[in-house]
């Protein structure tokens, strides 16, 4: 028994590892630059002077460091010989992706790096030139084009943009001040920089070694990576941290990152949400089991009677009724005055009219009133499901010989059913407990959305709509772990009530 439980718990670890890996790679595939999402477009307004631009970049890098994005992504990567193993140090996600595309095409990191730096220097140099009426437009053109170039990888477009910048630098502009024509030649100061960009880009194309891309290389980055930090944090588990730059506690110590929307810790968002989901689901599981077990047993015992036929049909219909339809019907028909049946509150978990100093009992009654419909909509599906399973389990037990023996012995019916048959038919119901978990979490998403209950389901729905990935993937990991725990518990319970299970697993 003990070995079996230990084995099951040990199985838990690789499963958790794979799920965390899956979650992590999904979050890495999410579109958009996490830093910019978090800064909410703080990088815009680059037309100012060098200071504002540098301040913007500094803010970007600080946030990037804070989110841990300055680290390599994973323990190992499989990339090509053309891609340097320090590419992760280019922190801007979009820049990095453009550089990767250039490498895929030309395969010469050194030249591409030189081109990239030349471009950066050119952009920075524009801030050293004093702005006047004549060169303002050209300065903007160079900055804008440089910013486009960071994200461009198609050859004709790059050539065209560079040529346009070249003209902007070399051709003097005439402009009129106080009805006098002045020729502005200040842009020529950028000549060296633009020549460097041009030369660098020509070098990229001439010294191309695309074949390097076909050589796969496996590189090892060690434990200081994004995945490891996300799970375990970078603050030491024991003892005090000396390094102030290390701030993450990691998933397993309850640090789930911060929401993109308002910077709130995901932990506190979830802490508020989870209690509603827990209340909803615990009540509904409880009610479902309380009603469905006797129901299943009764219908099985009275097989082929009118009662059995009617209730089996009813259960089948209930089982097929989509809960979101029933919930919508409830909301439309019995929560609005439209059809004269304003019986229940439509949305939320408590009335807005409730006084702040209302007593516990008043509050309780108010919440219970709000919970009736959501609990009903969550319950009836699982109720029908469990009843049908219970009936099936009971039927297969009742057919067996030992039941007939008990009846032949003259035991009274209640004793045969509840003492002998019921116990054995209960075993499959225990495993259902684990299956209910994922069903309920999925069910909560729609029910909480319909009734506007601020639980986990609603939070994850809102996270999908707002593309708030830290929240979404934390809920995802969380519910997967909860489900796994549910499966683990039900497996152990299964082994407790049926010793054959652990024995057969041990030997086979």
């Amino acid at each position, binding site marked *: 028994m003990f070995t079996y439980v230990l084995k099951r718990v040990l*199985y838990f670890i*690789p*499963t958790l590892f*794979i*799920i965390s890996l899956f*979650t992590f790679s*999904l979050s890495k*595939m*999410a*579109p958009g630059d996490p830093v910019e999402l978090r800064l909410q477009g703080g990088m815009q307004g680059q037309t100012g002077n060098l200071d504002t631009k540098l301040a913007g970049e500094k803010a970007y890098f600080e946030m990037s460091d804070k989110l841990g994005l300055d680290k390599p992504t994973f323990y190992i990567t*499989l*990339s*090509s010989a053309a891609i340097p193993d320090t590419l992760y140090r280019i922190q801007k996600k979009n820049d990095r992706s453009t550089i*990767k*595309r250039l490498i*895929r095409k030309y395969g010469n990191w050194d030249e591409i790096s030189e081109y990239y730096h030349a471009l950066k220097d050119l952009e920075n140099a524009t801030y050293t030139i004093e702005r006047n009426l004549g060169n303002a437009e050209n300065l903007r053109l160079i900055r804008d084009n440089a910013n486009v170039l960071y994200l461009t990888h198609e050859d004709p477009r790059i050539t065209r943009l560079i040529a346009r910048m070249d003209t902007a630098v070399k051709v003097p502009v005439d402009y009129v001040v106080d009805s006098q024509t002045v020729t502005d030649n200040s842009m020529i100061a950028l000549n060296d920089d633009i020549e460097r960009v041009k030369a660098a880009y020509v070098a990229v194309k001439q010294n191309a070694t695309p074949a390097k*891309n*076909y050589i*796969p290389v496996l590189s090892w980055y060690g434990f200081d990576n994004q995945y490891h930090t996300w799970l375990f944090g970078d603050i030491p588990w024991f003892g005090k941290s000396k390094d102030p730059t290390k701030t993450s506690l990691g998933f397993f110590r309850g640090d789930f990152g911060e929401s993109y929307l308002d910077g709130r810790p995901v932990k506190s968002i979830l802490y508020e949400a989870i209690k509603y989901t827990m209340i909803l689901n615990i009540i509904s599981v409880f009610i479902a089991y309380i009603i469905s077990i006797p129901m299943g047993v009764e219908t099985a015992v009275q097989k082929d009677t009118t009662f059995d036929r009617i209730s089996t049909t009813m259960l*089948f*219909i209930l*089982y*097929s*009724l*989509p809960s*979101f*339809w029933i919930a*919508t*019907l409830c*909301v*439309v*028909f019995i929560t*609005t005055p*439209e*059809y004269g049946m304003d019986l229940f509150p439509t949305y939320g978990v408590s009335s807005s009219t409730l006084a702040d100093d209302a007593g516990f009992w008043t509050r309780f009654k108010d919440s219970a009133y709000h919970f009736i419909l959501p609990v009903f909509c969550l319950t009836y599906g699982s109720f029908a499901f469990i009843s049908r399973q219970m009936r099936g389990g009971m039927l297969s037990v009742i057919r067996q010989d030992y039941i007939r023996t008990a009846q032949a012995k003259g035991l009274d019916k209640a004793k045969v059913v509840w003492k002998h048959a019921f116990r054995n038919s209960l075993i499959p119901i225990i495993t259902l407990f684990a299956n209910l*978990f*994922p*069903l309920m*979490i*999925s069910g909560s*998403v*729609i029910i909480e*959305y*319909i009734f506007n209950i601020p639980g986990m389901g609603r939070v*994850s*729905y809102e*996270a*999908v*709509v707002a*593309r708030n*990935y830290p929240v*979404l*993937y934390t*809920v*995802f990991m969380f*519910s*997967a772990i909860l*489900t*796994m725990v549910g*499966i683990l518990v039900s497996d152990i319970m299964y082994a407790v009530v049926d010793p054959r299970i652990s024995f057969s697993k041990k030997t086979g």
Partner: protein
Amino acid sequence: MSTEIKEQEIQDNEIVLQDREVLNQQDQSYWGIVKRQFKKNRLAVWSLRMVYFIIFIGLFADFIANDKPLYCKYQGESYFPVVKTYLVDLGLDKWPRELAIVSWKEIELESAVWPPIPYSPTEMDKYNVQYVGPFDEQRRIEQSRWRHWMGTDQIGRDVLAGMVHGTRIAMMVGIIAMAISSIIGIFFGAIAGYFGDTRLKVSRIRLVLNIIFIFLAFYYAFGMRSFVLGDAINDSMGSFAGQLGISVLLFLVMGIIPNILTIPLKRIPFLGKQVTIPADIIVSRLIEILVSIPRLLLILAIVAIAKPSIFLVMVIIGVTSWTGIARFLRGELLKVRSLQYIEAAQSLGFQEARIIFRHAIPNSLTSVLIVIAFGIAGAILIEAGLSFLGIGVQADVVTWGKLLNLSRQAPEAWWLAIFPGFAIFVTVTIFNLLGEGLNDALDPRLKQ
């Protein structure tokens, strides 16, 4: 006395003969028995008819509800606008310039045959906006031919037309998602069930080479082509499917190489030593991992990072719902494997692949149909739930779930709450009933 006996004998003989005839007429093959058992279940038979009906509506949705006439005469020329739209979409035909973008109801047609529901799901009837009910007075509609039989929504779209086109989406979701999950589920279920933990033996060199080449194949087929694939998915679903096809083909070709390399290398005794792969444990673990992720959340997590597309939703539902089929087939194969005809096939020296695909799987596959029937119901339910939440479906696609969600903004429009939900309920129910019927028909206990 003797004549009586004789008559009795003749009668008996006739009865026996009749019985025999009946037996001969009845199909005694496995499918014949299953069919007879299935036909005894009236509900299931009716469900099957309903399924045909729904598939019919789905297939011919454009001919049932459309804002173009089926046939019309315009300026002396005959057109079949609905058929022509298909041809134009396929690039085989072109509209004359004056008809390219035209509202067919507003031009002067000499004669026209309209579809039974003369509205398309996205067409807006500007005279009947703001939720006009089925029994309300409908403006500018004199003949019952043009009535909105199930009312309209806020911007004047016909609900019945939406229902008809929603049927097509629901059918496609059910069929495509289940086709994908059947392929994956049957593959894994067959491996786990047939080989179990002890029977899949490969040589050391084959195992090592295959593992190395899986990484390499992944690198060349997907890693190297990541930008091509990424651009294609932003371009269109069709070009993505094409590029993905190339990648998969590359992957498969790379997968063949190690198995060819194995043939000479196997001769070296050390490399050729056989190792047992616990296929059942590996597949069971995989299933357990997938099962422990709540499906709706898994789909939400994937949909959140992609562009909304109904086909993507179908594929994701398919890829995430194969566990039921795999588990079921595994269980069936574990039973079948110990049967004598498999042993006979093995002792005749047939190859493993042939035994699996020609003998073992066909005999277990019939029962997989049960899981597929329930799976279609589940897939339709999940898609309806997703589009109810407004997640993963493009703005111009009308589905049942979307229509149902419209009723939340307008409680007075009861038709939006009742009809789409009822359609989802009926479809889910008939597939569940079909599953039940198949379950009963294939149950060996009832076969006698």
